[in-house]
C-alpha cells in the first residue's frame, strides 16, 4: 500500500471518530437547552429574553445531529470508495507487471485490453473520490457554520442571563456549556476538513 493510500484511509477513518465525539457534544447542547428552558420557565419575567434562545439552541443542536448523521453515512461511502480505489490500483499495477513479464509471449498483446480497462477503472475511482471529498467538505462546512452560530447565541445568552437576578449563575452555566460544546464541535470538524482538503485537488 502506498503512503498516499494509507493516509487516505486514515483521513477518511478519522472523520468517523472525530464526528462521533461531535455527536456526543451536540446531544449535550440539546440537553443544556432543555435545562435552560426549565430554568427560564421558573425565572419567569426575569429571564424573558432567555426563553426564545433556548428554543433556538435546541433547534441548532438537532440540525447539527442530523448533519453529522448524514456525514457519517457519506463518510462510510467514501471509505468504501477508498478501498475500491486501492483494489483497482493494485489490479492495474499487477496487470502492468504481467504485461511486462509476458513480453515475447505468443499472446502478450491480449493483455493490453485488461491493462487499459484497469487504468480507466482506477482513474474513475480517483475522480469520484475527489468529487465525494468536495461534497463532504461542503457538509462539514455546514456543521462548522452551525457551531459558529451556537457560539454567537452563547454570547447573547450570557447577556440575557445577567438580567435574571438569582437565576444568573444557572443560566450563565448553561451559556458556558453551550459555548464550550460549540467550540469543541468547531475544532473537531476543522480537523476533519484539514485532513480531507489535501485530497480535493491531489
Amino acid at each position, binding site marked *: 500500500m502506498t503512503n498516499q493510500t494509507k493516509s487516505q484511509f486514515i483521513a477518511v477513518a478519522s472523520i468517523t471518530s472525530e464526528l462521533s465525539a461531535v455527536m456526543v457534544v451536540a446531544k449535550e447542547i440539546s440537553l443544556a437547552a432543555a435545562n435552560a428552558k426549565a430554568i427560564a420557565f421558573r425565572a419567569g419575567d426575569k429571564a424573558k429574553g432567555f426563553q426564545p434562545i433556548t428554543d433556538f439552541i435546541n433547534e441548532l443542536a438537532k440540525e447539527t445531529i442530523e448533519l453529522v448523521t448524514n456525514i457519517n453515512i457519506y463518510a462510510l461511502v467514501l471509505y468504501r470508495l477508498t478501498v475500491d480505489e486501492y*483494489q483497482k490500483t493494485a489490479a492495474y499495477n499487477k496487470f502492468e507487471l*504481467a504485461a511486462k513479464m509476458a513480453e515475447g509471449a505468443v499472446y502478450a498483446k491480449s493483455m493490453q*485490453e485488461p491493462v487499459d480497462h484497469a487504468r480507466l477503472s482506477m482513474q474513475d475511482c480517483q475522480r469520484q473520490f475527489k468529487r465525494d471529498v468536495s461534497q463532504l467538505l461542503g457538509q462539514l462546512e455546514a456543521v462548522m457554520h452551525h457551531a459558529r452560530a451556537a457560539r454567537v447565541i452563547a454570547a447573547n445568552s450570557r447577556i440575557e442571563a445577567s438580567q435574571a437576578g438569582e437565576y444568573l449563575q444557572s443560566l450563565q452555566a448553561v451559556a458556558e456549556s453551550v459555548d464550550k460544546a460549540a467550540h469543541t464541535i468547531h475544532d473537531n470538524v476543522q480537523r476533519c476538513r484539514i485532513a480531507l482538503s489535501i485530497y480535493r485537488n491531489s
Partner: protein
Amino acid sequence: MKMTKIYEGSHQWIMFGRDEGKPENIIDTNQYVVRTPNRCLLLDPGGAELFAPMMAAVLHHAPVDQITDLFASHQDPDVISSLGLWDQALTNAKLHAPAIWEGFLRHYSCESIEYEPIPDNGGTIKLESVELQLIPAHYLHSPGNFHVYDPQAKILMTGDVGAAFEAPDAPVFVDNFAAHVEKMRHWHQRMMPSNQAKRVWIERVRNMDIDILAPQHGRMFKGDDVKRFLDWFDALQVGIAV
C-alpha cells in the same frame, strides 16, 4: 515461472510452478492449465502474489479472452486469493469451486466471474470435447474439497494430497520415492485431519486409471509412483495434532 507440458493429445495439460521471483515467506505452489483449441481452464490458479507471473506464463499458451474457466479445489489463499485480480482481468469466465465455500470465496471479490458451485457429491467441467470429473476429497484437508480427474490424459490433480515442499530447482517429478517420503510425512500427518476420509478417498482413487498424480505443492507422481503413494498414504496415521 517454470512451465512443463505433462500431456499432449487433443488437449494439453501444462504445469506451472517453481517461480523464481516468489517472495521467500510464502509457500511454493503448482498451478495447472488444461488447454483446448478455444478455451483454457486454470486449476488452483494461485495466490495474489503469484498473479502477474502466472498470467504472464499463461499468455504463452492462450490469450486472455480464451481463459474461460477457473477451478478452486478449496478455499485456501495459496489456491485462490488471486480471484479478485482474475475477476477484473477476465470478461467471460466461470469459477468452479465447492458450493460450501461460495460465501467465503466471494470475500476475495467475485463480481464479473460467474461462480459455479460444486455440490458435495461432485460434478464435471466440460471444456469443448474434454470432460473432467470433479472427485470429492472432503476433509483432505479442507471440509469442502475436490480433485480433478481427466480420464483421457489419465491425470488426477489432487490439491494438497501428495504435497511436499521442495527447493526451487527440484525436478517436477518424483524420481526416488523412498527419499521423497520424508518430505511429505509431517505435512500429511499434521494437515490431513481424518483417517476415515483418507480411506474413503483411497478406495475411490484406486479404481481410477492414473498415469500422473499432480498435487498443488511439490513434485508430481507418475507411473508406479502413483501406486506407491497410495500405499504409503493408506498406511499413514493422520490427524496427529489432537
